[in-house]
C-alpha cells in the first residue's frame, strides 16, 4: 500500500501570493458602520443607540438604502426560489402523507428541491413540484460552505466534459452522469440504477476533486469556475489534485483564466 507523508509546514498567508489588497469595507462585531439613520438594516447588523452596528465579521454591502454585512462563513439561510440538495431524515407521520408520499420518497433518500416559503422562525418548506426536482440516483455529493455557492439563474448545469452538476444553495453539490435522454414521463422519483461507465466515473471523480480544491482555496463555485478548474487539472492525475501544491497551482490557473475572461 502506498503511503504519502509530509512534515508540517508553516502556512503562508494566501493573500501574499495574490499580491493584492481587498478594496472592501471590512468590519468586526461592535464596529459602527454608519451613524446615518436613513439606511435600512439588513443581515449582520443591528441598531444600537442611533447607530448601525455590525454583528458579524465580514464585508459591508450596500444596495441603495439597504446595508448588510456578509459574513465569511454562515449557516445556510433559505430564500424563496433557492435550490437545495438534501437527505430526508424524518417524515411527518400523518395518514394522508403515508398514502401519498411513502411510495415515492423514503427516509434516507437524497433529493433536490426548491424553497417554497420561509417561516418567521427560520424554518423553510420545500417543494418538488417540477420534473427536474426529485430523488437523486447515482453520483457524488460534495459538501462546501453555503457562502461559496454563487447565486445564478440556474443551478442545474450540464458540463461539456461529460457530467452534470447541481449546485445547491445550501452548500451541497451533486455531481452525476449526464442522463442520455431526458426522462420526462417518470419525473424525478425513479432512481436510475444502471451501471455507470468507467469514463463517466473518472470525469465525476475529477470534478469532485476540483470542487473540493476550489472550496479549500475559498473560490466562488459556479459552472464557469468549475469547468476552468477541470480543464486546468487535466494534466494531473485525479488523486494528485488533492495535494496542497497541485491544488494551489490549479486554482491559481483557474483564477487567472477567470480574470482574463472578465477583463
Amino acid at each position: 500500500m502506498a503511503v504519502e507523508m509530509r512534515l508540517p509546514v508553516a502556512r503562508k498567508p494566501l493573500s501574499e501570493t495574490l499580491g493584492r489588497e481587498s478594496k472592501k469595507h471590512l468590519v468586526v462585531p461592535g464596529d459602527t458602520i454608519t451613524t446615518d439613520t436613513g439606511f435600512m438594516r439588513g443581515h449582520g447588523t443591528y441598531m444600537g443607540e442611533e447607530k448601525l452596528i455590525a454583528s458579524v465579521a465580514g464585508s459591508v454591502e450596500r444596495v441603495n438604502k439597504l446595508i448588510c454585512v456578509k459574513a465569511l462563513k454562515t449557516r445556510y439561510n433559505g430564500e424563496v426560489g433557492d435550490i437545495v440538495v438534501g437527505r430526508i431524515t424524518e417524515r411527518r407521520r400523518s395518514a394522508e402523507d403515508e398514502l401519498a408520499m411513502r411510495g415515492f420518497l423514503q427516509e434516507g433518500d437524497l433529493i433536490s428541491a426548491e424553497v417554497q416559503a420561509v417561516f418567521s422562525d427560520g424554518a423553510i418548506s420545500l417543494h418538488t413540484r417540477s420534473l427536474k426536482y426529485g430523488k437523486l440516483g447515482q453520483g457524488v455529493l460534495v459538501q462546501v460552505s453555503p457562502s461559496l455557492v454563487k447565486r445564478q439563474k440556474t443551478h442545474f448545469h450540464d458540463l461539456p466534459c461529460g457530467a452534470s452538476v447541481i449546485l445547491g444553495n445550501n452548500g451541497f453539490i451533486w455531481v452525476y452522469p449526464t442522463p442520455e435522454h431526458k426522462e420526462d414521463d417518470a419525473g424525478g422519483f425513479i432512481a436510475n440504477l444502471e451501471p455507470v461507465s468507467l469514463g463517466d466515473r473518472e470525469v465525476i471523480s475529477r470534478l469532485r476533486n476540483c470542487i473540493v480544491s476550489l472550496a479549500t482555496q475559498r473560490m466562488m463555485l459556479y459552472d464557469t469556475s468549475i469547468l476552468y478548474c477541470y480543464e486546468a487539472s487535466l494534466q494531473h492525475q485525479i488523486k494528485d489534485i488533492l495535494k496542497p501544491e497541485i491544488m494551489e497551482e490549479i486554482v491559481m490557473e483557474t483564477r487567472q483564466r477567470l480574470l482574463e475572461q472578465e477583463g
Partner: protein
Amino acid sequence: MAGLELLSDQGYRVDGRRAGELRKIQARMGVFAQADGSAYIEQGNTKALAVVYGPHEIRGSRARALPDRALVNCQYSSATFSTGERKRRPHGDRKSCEMGLQLRQTFEAAILTQLHPRSQIDIYVQVLQADGGTYAACVNAATLAVLDAGIPMRDFVCACSAGFVDGTALADLSHVEEAAGGPQLALALLPASGQIALLEMDARLHEDHLEQVLEAAARAARDAHTVLDRVVRQHVQEASVLLGD
C-alpha cells in the same frame, strides 16, 4: 511560600511584568475545517481551544426548544495534562460544570439569540495548558470561534482576571499568583459599550479596593480586545481577498 514576593519594590511581578500588563496573546481562527467555527488562543502559557457548532436543530428533547431564541450550550473541559499534577477527570467534575455555566451566561449576553429561534448553539472549550486565567482564555477563544462560525454577536466578549497584592491591583494573573491565595476577580466585558457580561469573584476583598481591581481588569480586557480585533481583521482581510471582488 516564604520569600516569593508577588510584587517587588520596583513594581515587577514574578514573571517580570508590571502590575497592569497583560501576557502575550497569540490567536488563530479557523483551525478546524469540520467545525462551524473554531479558534485557538495562547495567553502567556495558558493555551485554550474553542469549537462552535451551530446554530442547528435542538438535539435531544424537542421540549427544550425556546420559541423565541436560541439555546446556548457550553461545555468546558481541561485536558489531563493541562496542570502540574495529572487531572483525574477532564470533564464532568464540579469546576468544569461551573465554568460551563459561567461561559453560558457570558455568551447568552453577547450572542443575538433572537435571530435563531428554536435552535441550539454549542460551544466547546478545552484548556490544553493551564497557567492561570483559564476562564479569560476560554472566553477569548470562544469569542473568536463564534465569530468564525458567523453567528451574530452584539460585540466581542473580552475577559481578563485581576488580583490585589500590597495595595496594587494586578491584571492577568498567572498560576503562581493565583495559587498565592489573594483575592481574584474574573471579568468579561463587551468593549464597545463597556457593558459587563460576567463578573465573578469568590474571595474576600474590601469594598474600598473593588473599584481599583475592577478598573485594572477592565483596562486589561480592553487591551486583550485590541489584540483579538487585529487577529479577526487580518483573518477577514485574507479571506475576502481570496473570495475576490
